[in-house]
């Protein structure tokens, strides 16, 4: 078997094991939390009778281990079950939310990744001169401000004062792509500001590191222009660390944007998960957790593979 293929198979198998472990941890975590779903649904209006009735109806009287394995067998057959709180099919509601989250993450990535890399290259080209300092200054400032604050500031000036874009980024199926993009303009802008600095700084550092090498000096002596050197010689050799940090940020765009979702009222996965955690709706929490874990593990797998493929020494091991 080709060593790379073998590696992929190994990593995928390991990932599945990791997912199983994650699902156990999520389940145990939700059991440790105080209160149960019946109490959360009925809230202050709970009486001992209605609590007992609801618990029986939701099957909460079974031992936890039984409930976990029931859930696991369901998932293995592709059935995520129904939400305890509102009886809706989890696969269907989750699918919609996941679609929205990926939509937002996709467009944020489309804007931020090329921009970050371009700004990183630009910063290297004008290292320690004013463009470098300006880029670093602005991006580091934006990553240092909490994202909800950036959200509110952007909302106040762009939406309330100027009236350019909607502060409510609610999208639904009946909207055209243009309308959807218009609706998510502000969250994409905020997310871009949040993830830009990390990727841009990494690009800058990785390329500067390579720039110290002897072959760059050779290229310089050959008389190549600065940009050509960076593009043809430095960048391909710096790609592995850059891809790594890009993947971490992509994962963040999928699993970590709940604050931005709340501020812009975006119907994504984050809010969906938080609502169900606070209601102790274990099957939904499990399903969401599983997806988040899968995204994280999947993107890291891709990062590893790309760094191997980008490096001839790893591609052709002796």
């Amino acid at each position: 078997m080709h060593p790379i293929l073998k590696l992929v198979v190994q990593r995928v198998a390991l990932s599945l094991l990791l997912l199983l472990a994650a699902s156990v941890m999520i389940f145990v975590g939700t059991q440790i939390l105080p209160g149960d779903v019946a109490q959360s649904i009925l809230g202050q209006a709970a009486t001992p009778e209605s609590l007992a009735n609801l618990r029986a109806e939701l099957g909460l009287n079974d031992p936890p281990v039984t409930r976990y394995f029931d859930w696991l067998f369901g998932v293995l057959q592709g059935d995520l079950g129904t939400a305890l709180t509102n009886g809706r099919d989890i696969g269907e509601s989750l699918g919609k939310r996941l679609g929205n989250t990926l939509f937002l993450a996709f467009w944020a990535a489309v804007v931020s990744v090329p921009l970050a890399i371009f700004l990183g290259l630009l910063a290297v080209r004008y290292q320690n001169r004013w463009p470098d300092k300006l880029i670093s200054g602005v991006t580091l400032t934006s990553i240092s401000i909490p994202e909800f604050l950036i959200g509110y500031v952007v909302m106040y000036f762009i939406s309330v004062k100027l009236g350019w874009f909607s502060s409510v980024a609610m999208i639904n199926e009946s909207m055209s792509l243009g309308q959807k993009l218009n609706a998510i303009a502000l969250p994409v802008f905020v997310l871009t500001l949040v993830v830009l600095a990390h990727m841009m700084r990494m690009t800058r550092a990785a390329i500067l590191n390579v720039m110290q090498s002897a072959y760059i000096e050779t290229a310089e002596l050959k008389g190549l222009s600065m940009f050509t050197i960076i593009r043809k010689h430095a960048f391909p050799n710096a790609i592995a660390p850059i891809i790594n940090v890009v993947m971490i940020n992509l994962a963040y765009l999928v699993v970590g944007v709940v604050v931005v979702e709340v501020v812009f009222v975006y119907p994504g996965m984050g809010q969906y998960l938080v609502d169900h955690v606070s209601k102790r709706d274990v099957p939904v929490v499990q399903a969401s957790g599983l997806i988040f874990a899968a995204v994280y593990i999947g993107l890291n797998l891709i990062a590893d593979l790309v760094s191997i493929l980008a490096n001839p020494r790893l591609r052709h091991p002796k």
Partner: protein
Amino acid sequence: MSNELKQLATKAAKGLVSRRDFLGRAGALGITAVGANAMLASAAKAAGPNKGGHLVQGIGGGESSNSLDPALTASSVPFGNLKHFGDLLVQIRPDGVLEPRLAESVEATSDAKTWTFKIRKGVEFHNGKTMTPDDVLKTMQRHSNEDATSGALGIMKGIESMKVDGDNFSVTLTTPNADLPYLMSDYHLVVQPGGGMDSPADGVGTGPYILETDEPGVRSLWKKNPNYWEGDIGNYDSSEILVINDATARTAALQSGQVHMINRVDPKVAGLIDRAPGVSIKSVAGRGHYVFIMHTNTAPFDSNELRMALKMVINREEMVNKILRGYGTVGNDLPINASYPLFDETIPQRKMDAAKAAEHYKKSGHDGSPIILRVADGAFPGAVDAAALFQESARAAGIPLEIKREPNDGYWSEVWNKQPFCASYWGGRPVQDQMYSTAYLSTADWNDTRFNNPRFDELLFSAKAELDDAKRKALYSEMANILRDTGGLICPMFNDFVDAVSDKIAGYEPDPNNELVNGFAMTRTWLA
């Protein structure tokens, strides 16, 4: 009032003159802003509602775990949804009077034990079926039978039997209750086809709007019911609720014109929003109250002297000013205020008195160990700050209060009704009897102060059976005094419902029953 101004008000109501212009001119003629606004409202009413358009409400208090099942409704967004698609047998008008809805009339036997509701004919469900008394019976059964999970189960408890007799639906109680029709106005008790036994969460009812789309925790979309039994009362062709839980996002959505009205404006920013162009704050005193509750059967709170010390030391005015920013009224250690029918306004207002508090504290013989007060931000907005104010004023009287912060998560299941002294919130009930029976009767499920006073219980039962209002008022007054002087409830304040509304909306008149015109914005307001 000059004729010119009247004409102007009519013009403003019809949108021919802007509201701001009208207020400006009224001011020039020496009329106060309050008076001018009232004029505008009455002129708007006289001009009659405009029809058509699309209403968008931005409401905080909805989760993706919500359902359209009326039995499981507990927060603002599902409540707003219920009002779109459902109707009750009876409902409380803004002035506190009971209005017959799906019941044409209500009658009681002289002992107030059997109540008969004459069910309206010719009412159609959204699925085309005609509503029958049997649907009513099944609905009530679903909310009251043994395996019910309804939030209304508590109030349905005293029912002995229910039956259908021709066009009538009748309820027989185990003990008399003069307020039963008020209990039937509980928002959970929406009449559903077949009682909603088969598909409780399908959003089919008899209401003025029909469900188009429901995305829990995101939005719901409704279109006007062309066959509504009461005629053309929906003022908008379609109505939409957007779930916006973040307070700042809600305000921004209103200010940028994406929603027409929002609920739960933070009192801290209400003044600022009211001064912003294009929007105004609408607040109304309700029955909801922020409280600190002590278990009267647990040391050290089993000593009435200590309870009195804590009641005397809390600074109610300061709390209304600092926690509610004036959007509320002071409490009197009662769960009842002037919003309730038959309230005795002569009960003296309790005021802070550190010297007296210190005296009570001394008499209680408390050993001086810290008294632990548990709070969380989720208990009520500003609960932690209110506790800090409480602690400060207690310190002045030498009472050692210690604040223990609890997580919001699980507060209602782990702290409230379990720990002997904590912060809490009550939404209030339509009538005194229901409030007292829910939380102050010694055997009540939610007796969160562990209040046990035989005389109080006895008065409560005699008031239930009393159909003469003057006598009932006297009974309630005695009960209020007992509770105020011996109970475990410290009630510093009643909060207002604070909404904010765009100038594009006319006809908005706050309803003390609940926020956003008691959920009836689509039938009681219109596009100006």
